[in-house]
């Protein structure tokens, strides 16, 4: 689009990051990240369909330090996107739109997503017997 030489309005970088804007962009970033995670899920299922050796290789890859790091990231991304998605549903219903409520529910989403991530990882390590 040719905008000519007319003055442009200030863009994102001139604004101070706030809980509202940061959580909003995080919703999109975690969504894109989860799409990448979905590709790994398809690989994982196809490896299991292919045979025991292919599945074992997939399990080893996911259990490597890089695999675990990515899975930890995807766990948080999923819980964040899930919790913030529920926050969006309340907004769609016309609830929780006052600024103080938006701040409170934003922090609830942050704390809840971190808490659910920790619980899932403690549970999986617990089932493995502390591996």
């Amino acid at each position, binding site marked *: *689009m040719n905008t000519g030489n007319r003055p442009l309005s200030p863009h994102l970088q001139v604004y101070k990051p706030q809980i509202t804007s940061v959580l909003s962009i995080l919703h*999109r970033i975690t*969504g*894109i990240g*989860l*799409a990448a995670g*979905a*590709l790994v*899920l*398809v690989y994982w*299922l*196809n490896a*299991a*369909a292919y*045979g*025991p050796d292919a*599945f*074992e290789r997939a*399990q080893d890859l996911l*259990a490597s330090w890089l695999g675990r790091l990515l899975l930890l990231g995807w*766990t948080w991304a*999923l*819980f964040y996107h*899930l919790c913030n*998605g*529920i926050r*969006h*549903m309340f907004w*769609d219903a016309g609830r929780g739109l006052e600024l103080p409520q938006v701040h409170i529910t934003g922090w609830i989403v942050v704390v809840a997503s971190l808490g659910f991530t920790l619980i*899932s990882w403690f*549970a*999986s390590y617990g*089932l*493995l017997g502390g*591996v």
Partner: protein
Amino acid sequence: MALRSDLGRVRGLGSAKDGTSHWWAQRVTAVALVPLSIWFVFSVVNLVGVDKDGFKVWLNGPGSFVLMALFLIALFYHMQLGLQVVIEDYVHNERNKVISLVLNKLLAVFLVVSSITALMRIAFGG
């Protein structure tokens, strides 16, 4: 004075020409994904370190296959809708935008067919 024609008001479609169907489908898939994704994380936590036989036993257990298939359908539908908005926001060249939107839809269909086919091969295969 109303700025829209009577026909435009009746059809209720905005500038994107698809009305509220995208927005609504995104919400419906989101509602489905709330319980399904919680179930999925719970299942994966229980599948940590499992081998192929263990995976098959789980998949043939009560509910697993149907819930997993529903999760995959809702997931890839929701993913396609979300990525579509990202493409529409950032890809401004009309040709690249149309190509990206078509590839996005085809990718989602491929992924859902591929993953559910894999599920069937695990569940019914040897």
